[in-house]
């Protein structure tokens, strides 16, 4: 008697599952057609603000710029220095550190960065441009030069 009850229970579950599946498939509603997405455009490059600090005779310039608009997944910023003399170090130089004359200080990889530091002597000014993958935006206007 117990064996029969178990068999009935199993059969009931199987039938219920089959019924649900069959009915569900028949109830499916479908529709086919086009959808659209649009690629973004890099935001305008903000003009950076430059401050400087000298500690124990070593001057460090801090370059700061606004965060990009919400929804823009930048992969970094390109920071360009004009004038002065660059020294080794600083967080502006994520990939390469040009010595001497004006150079490009790429901060690719610092996705969340909105500032970086550059140890440089002399009067310097900076421009920044947003980077997304292989996309590089037009550089901003130059910042005011340091003293």
């Amino acid at each position, binding site marked *: 008697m117990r064996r029969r009850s178990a068999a*009935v*229970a199993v*059969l*009931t579950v199987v*039938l*219920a599952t*089959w*019924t*649900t599946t*069959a*009915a*569900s*498939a*028949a*109830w*499916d*509603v*479908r*529709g*086919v*057609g*086009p*959808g*659209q*997405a*649009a*690629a*973004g*455009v*890099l935001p305008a490059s903000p003009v950076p603000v430059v401050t400087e600090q000298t500690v124990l005779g070593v001057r460090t310039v801090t370059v700061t710029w606004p965060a990009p608009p*919400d*929804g*823009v*997944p*930048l*992969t970094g910023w390109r920071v360009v220095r004009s004038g002065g003399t660059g020294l080794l170090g600083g967080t502006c130089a994520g990939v390469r550190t040009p010595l001497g004359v004006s150079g490009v200080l790429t901060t690719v990889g610092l*996705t969340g960065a909105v500032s970086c530091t550059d140890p440089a002597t002399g009067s310097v000014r900076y421009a920044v441009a947003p980077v*997304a*993958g*292989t*996309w*590089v935006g037009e550089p901003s206007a130059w910042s005011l030069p340091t003293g």
Partner: protein
Amino acid sequence: MVVLGAALLVAGGGVATANWLLEGTGPGATSGATIQPLEVSAGTPTTGLYPEPTGGYPSLSPAVGTVVAQVRNPNSFPVRLTSATVGQIDVTAAANRTCAAGNVVAAATTVTMPTAAPVVVAPGATSVQVMVPAAVRMLPTAPIGCQGVLVNASLTFAGVPA
């Protein structure tokens, strides 16, 4: 045995009901209960697609890679959309720009529609804008000519009566 009999009864009734709804051969067909396919047309995109960073897109609001469609429900009952399957993808570059279609690909073959905020298309609704989040992505190597490109993606929606 009573349970078995009830199960068979329910099974038979369920299948019969499903069949007449699908094929329109039952007594309810003349009352408009036949299932009609949803009608889908292109929507207006509201978000931007950018080259995918290493490790994937971060959680952003609005979501990157959203595909937008307009859905019309000709049925007499509401339909809850459960998934969207992305098919052929074409791109139209902006003026004076070049972007190959292969730079934009489906992020997932089938996107499960969010259950937290179900998308329900009311009966007779003629133009409901439906967002399919994270449906497409742009390759990290996509050239800058892909800026502003318009992406057309074939969508197959699946839904159930709500």
